[in-house]
């Protein structure tokens, strides 16, 4: 199975997330390596405390950002591969029928590693572009001895080349696992295929629309994760950025808000688009029977609303708890650390902007679904 550049480009979600992850990690790891070189020049205890606090904050940011973004990229990659296999079942079935092995077909999925190469490579380039300014801001009070930015090839290997190879291997292995199905199952595109009852639990006497909303949400758990995660990121990173200006610097603040907004909006967009596309046929049939577009989209998209709001609430609590922890535990020996209180202004700004973006996205997808004729969707 040969994946074209177009297929790779469709994975903007992974490209953007890996860009953000590597951008942040490159900035802080490069900074930590460069700052480590001046350790012997530090004589004062107060300067050493600041030096160690900076190293620690770099490690915390890298592990938090890098770790969570890496996990998201892997989950998103699995989601994409599954979706790709589902939408190309017939072609894959034909290839298997004429003698291609699952592994031979799955080898083509290694091209997904290119997404990481593009994203991570771009993130590293951008980080080195902003590096001099970042260093200047980090040491604007000239407390630490003089140091300058250097390029460290180890970061290129660890943050770009190894992840790209890792993702390529993971893609092939996951592809192999997903392709391990009988040929006929791939060739027969029966309506309703892929949904199995699983554990039989008696369904309550719910109205059709309520039941549809419930089933749509819980039978695609990866999308539940993406939507909750996106809302979590938006909430935590936007609110955190307001405190960061006071705690660290304006660069931190801007960086966090930009990464948060790009990451969460991209994830939300991809997840909601996937829900809308996956349910286009169901919506078409409901419209044929006489359900209004409002009822249809309310049932297939509306169920994700409360998940997004729960994600937002957890993000709010998380960022407050994290900042409280950092200021009271991590920086307990550092003087002049501002006391953190709950920032209601930041909360309202984050909540209103999130509500506006999410509701506009749902509304736009509803309009798109409504515009497509039932005949067009059912003919696909």
């Amino acid at each position, binding site marked *: 199975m040969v994946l074209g550049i177009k297929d790779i480009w469709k994975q903007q979600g992974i490209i953007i997330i890996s860009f953000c992850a590597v951008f942040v990690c490159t900035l802080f790891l490069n900074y930590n390596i460069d700052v480590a070189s001046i350790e012997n020049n530090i004589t004062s205890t107060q300067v050493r405390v600041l030096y160690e606090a900076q190293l620690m904050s770099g490690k915390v940011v890298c592990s938090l950002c890098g770790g969570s973004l890496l996990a998201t990229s892997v989950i998103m990659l699995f989601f994409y591969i599954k979706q790709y296999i589902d939408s190309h079942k017939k072609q894959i079935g034909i290839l298997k029928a004429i003698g291609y092995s699952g592994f031979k077909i799955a080898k083509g999925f290694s091209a997904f590693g290119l997404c990481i190469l593009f994203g991570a490579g771009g993130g590293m380039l951008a980080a080195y572009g902003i590096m001099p300014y970042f260093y200047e801001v980090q040491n604007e009070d000239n407390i630490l001895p003089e140091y300058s930015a250097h390029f460290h090839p180890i970061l290129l290997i660890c943050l770009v080349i190894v992840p790209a190879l890792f993702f390529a291997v993971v893609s092939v292995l996951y592809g192999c696992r997903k392709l391990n199905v009988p040929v006929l199952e791939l060739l027969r595109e029966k309506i309703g295929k892929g949904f*199995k*009852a699983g554990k039989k639990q008696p369904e309550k006497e719910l109205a059709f629309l309520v039941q549809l909303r419930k089933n749509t949400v819980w039978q695609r758990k990866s999308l539940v994760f993406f939507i909750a995660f996106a809302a979590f990121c938006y909430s935590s990173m936007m609110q955190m950025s307001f405190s960061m200006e006071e705690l660290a610097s304006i660069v931190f603040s801007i960086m966090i808000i930009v990464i948060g907004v790009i990451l969460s909006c991209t994830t939300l967009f991809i997840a909601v688009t996937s829900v809308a596309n996956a349910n286009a046929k169901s919506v078409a049939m409901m*419209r044929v029977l*006489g359900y209004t577009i409002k009822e249809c989209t309310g049932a297939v998209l509306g169920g994700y609303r409360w998940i997004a709001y729960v994600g937002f609430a957890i993000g709010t609590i998380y960022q407050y708890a994290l900042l409280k922890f950092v200021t009271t535990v991590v920086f307990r020996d550092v003087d002049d650390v501002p006391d953190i209180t709950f920032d209601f202004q930041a909360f309202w700004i984050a909540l209103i902007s999130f509500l506006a973006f999410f509701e506009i996205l749902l509304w736009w997808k509803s309009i798109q679904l409504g515009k497509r004729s039932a005949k067009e969707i059912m003919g696909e």
Partner: protein
Amino acid sequence: MIQVKEVVKSFGNKENLNKVLKGISLTIKDGEFVVILGASGSGKSTLLNVISGLERPDSGRVSYDSKDISRLSDKALTEFRKDKVGFIFQQYYLLPNLNVDKNVRMGADLAGNGEYRQIIEAVGLGGKLDKYPSELSGGEQQRVSVARALAKKPEVLFLDEPTGALDEQTGRLVLDYISKLHGKYHFTIVMVTHNLNIAEMADTVIRMNSGKIVEIYENQMTKTAYEIGW
């Protein structure tokens, strides 16, 4: 009564216009079983879509008891389909993430029909309420779609090649269920098929070719699903 007058429908753009319906006129009486017969490309499915309100004609009228539906807004057309018609398609179009009970309830809720399980029983699927479409055979899936269509108590039932994806035995079974339910509930049936034998079950047969009606005739003796050839 459904009246179709001088209906014209085309697809494509100015340079590549494909006139699919070329001035169709016909009348369908209440409770009648009508089959629209024709080869592939004759325009029979387009005619069904236009009569059922799924598509608007370019010109002409489609009236239900003198109410013209061809110029209704999208909202009014949705309301019309909700109140008046049921559909059965060749490809079933069941919702894959809902079980049999809920797929049928999809139609029942529109009509406030709390007794929809009787119809599931009537199509012989009473024991499979909890099954999902992927766990059913083609014939069973089509029977779910029959139950779904009838659970909304339609005045007119539209069927587009309902046995097209089924083998002979299952096809006969599905047609038999439809025929029995027609006898019980007295709705109007408009069925599109290319199978000449199925036309023998209908009261009236409309034969189409190249977007025109070439013949309309009434069967003096209608046959059951098990009497017709295949």
